[in-house]
């Protein structure tokens, strides 16, 4: 259905003449978001400070030894990132509500999937930056030293970030249509994300402690990413044009 819709759109844009293609629209939208973020630093600043607060409060809550912290750090890290991600995701679409930008998107022949991909990739970049800054902090605060191979952590990080961000971007688009949107986003995002959270936490813990193989969890994350990227791309048009 989507390919059909996309092809009719393509013929429509060809008729106009110089209209840009799918990837070009996605890229331009992404560049616009990155530039806006670079100038305002709204998402990154609020995320970073929020995550820092969570880390500090956690370390008051638990006072672990090096061995214990290896076991709980995976959970703490991902919970902190999850909370911080929700802070950033909430701002994804509200920015587009000002000046009726979202309505303009609805009217334009640009494929909605391109817009969704641009937003999701943008969020992916923001959350990745957050992780790059957060992980050293965790290593310092919790005296972490990994037993397992570190490159596996990189794979887990990429897959897990996409898992949080793809559903988060979609549900943020759902929740801007509701009353009290800031509360709504975590309420619908967390239950669906439970298997992904379980996978990222257990994979990280397995790598840090070196006790188990994380391979099942990495596979599960990959399946989760694939399935929900597909579902989001298919259903996004419906949500964007919902009246």
């Amino acid at each position: 259905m989507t390919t059909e819709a996309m092809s009719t759109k393509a013929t429509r844009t060809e008729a106009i003449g110089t209209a840009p293609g799918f990837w070009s629209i996605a890229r331009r939208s992404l560049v616009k978001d990155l530039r806006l973020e670079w100038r305002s630093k709204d998402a990154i600043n609020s995320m970073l400070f929020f995550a820092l607060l969570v880390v500090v409060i956690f370390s008051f809550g638990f006072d672990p030894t090096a061995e214990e912290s290896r076991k709980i750090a995976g959970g703490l890290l991902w919970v902190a990132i999850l909370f911080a991600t929700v802070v950033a995701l909430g701002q994804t679409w509200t920015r587009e509500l000002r000046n009726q930008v979202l309505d303009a998107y609805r009217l334009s022949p640009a494929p909605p999937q391109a817009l969704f991909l641009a937003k999701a990739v943008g969020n992916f970049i923001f959350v990745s930056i957050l992780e790059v800054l957060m992980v050293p902090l965790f290593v310092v605060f919790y005296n972490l030293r990994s037993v397992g191979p570190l490159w596996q952590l990189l794979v887990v990080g990429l897959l897990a970030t996409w898992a949080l961000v793809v559903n988060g971007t979609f549900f943020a688009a759902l929740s801007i249509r509701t009353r009290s949107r800031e509360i709504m986003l975590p309420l619908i995002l967390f239950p669906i994300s439970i298997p992904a959270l379980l996978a990222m936490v257990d994979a990280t813990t397995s790598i840090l402690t070196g006790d188990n193989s994380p391979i099942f969890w990495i596979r599960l994350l990959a399946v989760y990413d694939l399935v929900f990227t597909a579902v989001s791309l298919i259903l996004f048009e419906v949500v964007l044009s919902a009246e």
Partner: protein
Amino acid sequence: MKTIFRILAVITAALLAYGFVQAIFIAPTEATMGDVQRIFYYHLPSAWVAFLLFFVNFLASSWYLIRRSPRADALALASAEVGVSFCTIVLLTGPIWARPVWGIWWTWDARLTSTLVLWLIYVSYLMLRHYATGGQIPVLAATLGIFGFVDVPIVYMAIRWFRTQHPQPVIGGGEGSGLAPAMWVAVLWNLLAFAMLALLFVWLRYLQALAEHSLEEEHAQASLEMGEAR
């Protein structure tokens, strides 16, 4: 319609009564667990009915997105609400049974955990319906219904693996395989009774949701006409 509903209601009441007699008086007392095992005759039928209703919700949500029919949306709402109610019964009767038999109220066992996650997903579905505004509710809810259902197999895989990796904190002995034939009779009667009860509830809620929908349409129409008259 009304007479059919009443006849079905009477049959359901009779079935529930008969199922109660079967479960409490006729089914043999379980050898090791004793009478507390009889809660199983309510636990299992509720679980199956709840899972069935969540599946109905998925079908109705997909149907709504394809056809945009208010009837599909009403069915999705009704099945989710009744499904969550039955799932709540499962989550409440489970611990009541587990406390005397396992010695603990709750354990993060695979089946308990996945049922809890399922419950959370569909409660969040109802929350979205509650907080969404106006005519967008059906579309938003239908997309979330599809997300929730797609998530179920992934949840199941994740939690099974999660639990097989860690040692079981529980003394074994689930109900499962070795069910006596006399017990099966009680299970099946109660399953039938609960399925009928769920059908009645869903039907009632479905009609109510449809009535609500047409009432809103009428209000919208009336206010439009009033605007034109001026």
